[in-house]
């Protein structure tokens, strides 16, 4: 049942390339999970990764901030350049990289601490605040950017896990932006949310675009069409097609892309 999606009208604001991936291969043990992916992710743009389950889009996303390092059997080949610097270079500390490339996960995962501490944790460990007043300001700014300030401003010291699912996810987004990242990776951020919370998060993503380069993995093609300017379609570990969102959804070049967005595969 495919409805013609409302394609985002937004033109790509800049052509600066934030992340460039060249010939990326990812192996899980003997499994070749990502095959030869080349993609240039632009600054101040929302890039959507779509594709059927198990196609490697989340794996590739996790390569962009080296979250795959935590998986012992995972091996990455090829170059991923963040503003021209190879993030898999030996001299790169993944901890510094992750401060620049923030991440929001599929399931809301606030720390079992207060709302305030959830946001303040990143700035604290990176030394972004000199004093309590600074920190308070960062927390407020981040919660405002996460579009959740009004809902939680009276209970900043209540546990973050006590919020509703949608609020928790926006809290996680606020937490991710609190460290002032340059790129924000989102792994199916709305899959656990109801339509209203989804709409709020999508609106938020659109606002975040003015400051960050956002990469979002989604199973919902409508969502990809609504929020992104560029879309990449992954299939069986290959990057099949990568283009302007409007082009992917209206006039895809590859027949596989067309089959997927019209609901025939996936």
């Amino acid at each position: 049942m495919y409805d013609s999606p409302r394609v985002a009208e937004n033109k790509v604001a800049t052509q600066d390339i934030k992340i460039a991936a060249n010939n990326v291969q990812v192996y899980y043990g003997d499994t070749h999970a990502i095959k030869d992916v080349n993609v240039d992710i632009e600054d101040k743009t929302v890039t959507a990764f779509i594709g059927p389950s198990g196609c490697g889009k989340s794996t590739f996303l996790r390569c962009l901030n080296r979250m795959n390092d935590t998986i012992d059997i995972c091996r990455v080949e090829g170059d991923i350049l963040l503003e021209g610097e190879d993030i898999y270079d030996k001299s790169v500390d993944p901890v510094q990289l992750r401060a620049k490339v923030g991440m929001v996960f599929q399931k809301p995962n606030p720390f079992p601490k207060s709302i305030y501490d959830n946001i303040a944790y990143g700035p604290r460990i990176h030394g972004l605040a000199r004093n309590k007043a600074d920190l308070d300001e960062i927390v407020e700014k981040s919660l405002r950017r996460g579009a959740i300030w009004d809902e939680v401003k009276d209970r900043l010291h209540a546990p973050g896990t006590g919020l509703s699912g949608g609020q928790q996810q926006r809290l996680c987004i606020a937490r991710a932006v609190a460290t002032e990242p340059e790129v924000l990776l989102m792994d199916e951020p709305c899959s656990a949310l109801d339509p209203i919370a989804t709409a709020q998060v999508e609106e938020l993503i659109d606002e975040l675009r003015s400051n960050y380069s956002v990469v979002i993995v989604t199973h919902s093609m409508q969502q990809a069409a609504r929020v992104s300017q560029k879309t990449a379609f992954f299939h069986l570990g290959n990057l099949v097609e990568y283009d302007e969102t409007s082009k992917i959804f209206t006039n895809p070049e590859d027949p596989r892309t067309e089959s997927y967005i019209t609901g025939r595969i996936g």
Partner: protein
Amino acid sequence: MTDATLNAPGAKPKKTSLKTITERTKRRNASERRFKAYGIGAILIGIFFLVVLAVSIVNNGAPAFTRTVLDIELTLTQDQVDEAEGELFKTKAYEQLFIASLQGQLEESGLEVTFDPAALERIVGKTGSTIREHFKANPGDIGQPVTFELAASSRVDGYFNGRVNRETLQDSRFLQLSDLDLVDALADSGIIHGSINWNFIQGADSGVDNPGGAGIGASVVGSFFMMLVVLALSLPIGIAASIYLEEFAPQNRFTDLIEVNISNLAAVPSIVFGILGLAVFIQFMHLPQSAPVVGGLVLTLMTLPTIIISTRASLKAVPPSIRDAALGVGASKMQAVFHHVLPLAMPGILTGTIIGLAQALGETAPLLLIGMVGFVARGYPDGFVAGFTEPNSAMPAQIYTWAARADVSFYEKAWGGIIILLAFLLTMNIIAIILRRRFERRW
């Protein structure tokens, strides 16, 4: 009716009313009821044994906390003391004074009994030296009435506890049947009566023929210092090892080997650790024998696998999404573990630690091998350091020693010791529960 017939093409499923219960459902319900009955039965059996255990412990152990004493008020003048000191057998002279005084007290209550000094000695032991020592230590008491509370012998104690009675008593050098008449007379006049045996709780062990003087206090101190060693070593080492193995170590054959060995170590009989401790700590490293520090080291070896296994399990139980969240905002691996994973795993770690410590507290076999059955006749370790290095015993070893002694009245001491041991364990568990609550509430 099988699935095949149900799904057979063309065969219409037979319509049944919801209100009629089918054979199949009946059987399922019956088996569920049976299972519940088994469960309740199992719990009842457990409760039964627990009650039997508790009742028998309290029954057998309670007499250890009471003792029979002989109260005597004595007023000695300076002349009497001088005269006694002038005699050849000084304590004998004091004993004469004591008997005279006792006789006076008995006559006051209207009883006429003849005294055999030997019988009195069988009942309360050698009183002369006790009295002499008191007046030598407190010369100021001369000329004033002094009340002596003299512990009755264990047979007399047993006579009041019901362990010894007239039918079963055989004349021996400990007590003779005829002595019981005197005991009864003394009890009737209120001179012999029961009292709480503080010495059992505070005192040290006694000789094999003096069960009345045996106390568990010194070995409680020994156990306490041992537990300090175990806690101070096994908790940091155990947690550090499990955090490394669980969070940092690469998955390879070597770490697999370590894992298997830790699991195996947890199942190694404790006596093996005992002989290892004997060989390494005492024979090779020449640490002091019978000292709580050695006992603590051996028990640490024994406790470590338990703590490591439970700590790893509780670290594993922390959802990986928390680690992802911390790493995602740019925390280092160590920050993620120490700021987020460890606090969440803390209740589980504490539980494991307390189980390990409780195990160590009740362990006897390795202590026997390293000689933690030191006979401490009196007094406590002299200061904090000495508490670790001076020979001592531990509660379970002390209980074992008493149970192995010939005099039956040590048997009730063993039971009493078990009551103290259980009280110790209960206290530890309560502390653990309180700590758990504290950590669980933390936000």
